């Protein structure tokens, strides 16, 4: 197996549109969650979201702006930036040994929602002729492949909230096994359509609005947590063999050490301690690490009552008493739940945290919960925390658990 480096990152997310900005906002605990000012807001129990400051016309030509749903636009631009950041990763490359691995939970749901609005609300038959192209889950990967002439596999992974982590893990495996020399991997999501918001609300997964401080509505691991807040954005990584990147002298963000994938195979929504613990163990096994090598964890930490207690129990099951000494960060309090992009954004944050020797804060942790009794780095970043290995967890509706093992590079 070859060692795999992260040589480029592009991210557009509620915390910022470059790694430096979004990391500093996470470090400072500045929440991007806000009241949604949309016409449909009065139909929502809690009109909350985390939006990304992104104007497609500034980055894409008119035709692309019309033919790509917002999720694909975000992915396209994030991929461009990752490639630019990777300083020559696509040079001297056999294009058939370069692929795209993209996670998305809901694909072009904004465009589908708009199409249904035309058909059913307007009672018009003039549905946008690009609706299929806008809505399809594999559109983003296809456009990225076209933009960079990558002729290896262009694959889309859709396992709800673990989609991006799965995509990155699958890309890691192909590069590590020597099947590919470059992979663009990550995730994208633009789920803030009326239909999508209402569907998540109906499932009773969304946070209630904190009237005093809407930005603090998502409170992972806090006893008064009430659910998650949907967010939009994309994060893409360039993965390549460490040796190749080093030969080029490329500055590196870190190393991808391995990925653990498991399926709960128990319940469509209820998380499983056994399934999550197995994924944590599988990531360690893939990375060839014992549990005592783990220095930090970027939690799935959605802020739903079920996830956070289950995740705590899973971490305890894997690390035993040592679990209490591992800093655990739940950054969804700040950027919301990016669903199929969450694993990629959190991977980016975890890599940056290692480079800056910071444990990122779990914000809005107001009340300790006896069922969530680990070190979540509550409410303020912890500086000077040297981590060589960080796990980044993504656990999904449907039961697909994905844990990425990330390593620091000197």
């Amino acid at each position, binding site marked *: 197996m070859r060692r795999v480096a992260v040589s480029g990152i592009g991210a557009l997310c509620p915390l910022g549109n470059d790694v430096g900005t979004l990391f500093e906002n996470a470090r400072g605990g500045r929440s991007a969650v806000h009241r949604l000012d949309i016409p449909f807001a009065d139909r929502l129990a809690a009109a909350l979201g985390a939006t990304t400051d992104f104007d497609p016309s500034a980055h894409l030509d*008119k035709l692309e702006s019309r033919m790509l749903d917002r999720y694909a636009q975000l992915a396209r631009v994030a991929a461009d930036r990752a490639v630019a950041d990777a300083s020559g990763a696509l040079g001297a490359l056999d294009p058939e040994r370069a692929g795209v691995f993209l996670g998305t939970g809901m694909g072009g749901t904004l465009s589908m929602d708009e199409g249904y609005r035309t058909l059913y609300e307007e009672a018009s038959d003039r549905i946008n002729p690009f609706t299929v192209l806008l809505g399809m889950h594999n559109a983003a990967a296809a456009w990225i492949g076209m933009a960079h002439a990558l002729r290896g596999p262009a694959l889309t992974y859709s396992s709800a909230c673990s989609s991006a982590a799965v995509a990155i893990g699958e890309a890691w495996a192909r590069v590590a096994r020597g099947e590919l020399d470059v992979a663009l991997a990550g995730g994208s999501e633009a789920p803030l359509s009326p239909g999508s918001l209402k569907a998540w609300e109906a499932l009773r997964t969304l946070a209630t609005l904190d009237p005093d401080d809407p930005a603090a509505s998502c409170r992972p691991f806090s006893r008064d947590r009430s659910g998650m807040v949907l967010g939009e954005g994309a994060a893409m990584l360039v993965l390549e063999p460490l040796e190749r990147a080093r030969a080029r002298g490329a500055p590196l963000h870190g190393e991808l050490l391995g990925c653990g994938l498991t399926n709960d195979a128990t319940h469509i929504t209820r998380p499983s301690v056994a399934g999550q613990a197995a994924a944590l163990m599988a990531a360690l096994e893939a990375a060839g690490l014992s549990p005592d090598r783990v220095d930090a964890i970027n939690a799935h930490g959605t802020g739903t009552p079920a996830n956070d207690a289950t995740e705590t129990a899973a971490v305890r099951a894997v690390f035993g008493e040592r679990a209490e000494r591992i800093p655990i960060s739940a950054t969804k309090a700040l950027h919301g739940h990016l669903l199929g992009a969450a694993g990629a954004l959190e991977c980016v944050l975890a890599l940056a945290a290692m480079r800056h020797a910071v444990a990122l804060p779990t914000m809005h942790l107001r009340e300790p919960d006896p069922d969530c009794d680990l070190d979540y780095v509550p409410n303020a970043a912890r500086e000077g925390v040297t981590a060589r290995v960080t796990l980044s967890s993504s656990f999904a509706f449907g039961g697909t658990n994905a844990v990425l093992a990330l390593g620091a590079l000197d």
Partner: protein
Amino acid sequence: MTSSLETIRTLLVRDHDLPPERLGEDASLETLGIDSLGIMELLWNLEEDLGITLPTDRVELHTLGEVATYVDGLVAERRDEPTESTPENAPENAAASASTPHERG
């Protein structure tokens, strides 16, 4: 004389940022960078702007003039159906009534 040519030009300038001076009657869609999807979108917009309904049969269109002639034929057919003709759908008003349904979101 083809009356829909101006509408076609307006749409191509708006949707593809093409310079009007390149949009002569003999201009090739392929040369302008308008592929099959672009032609489909153009016809879809013309349906609304000119108040016509495109038949489902496939049609080969290569130049702006060919598109205009094809569309004008459909407009003429529509005029021959007295029950369906409405003044606001007449081609003279097409540019003014051009909608942008695909740019909503």
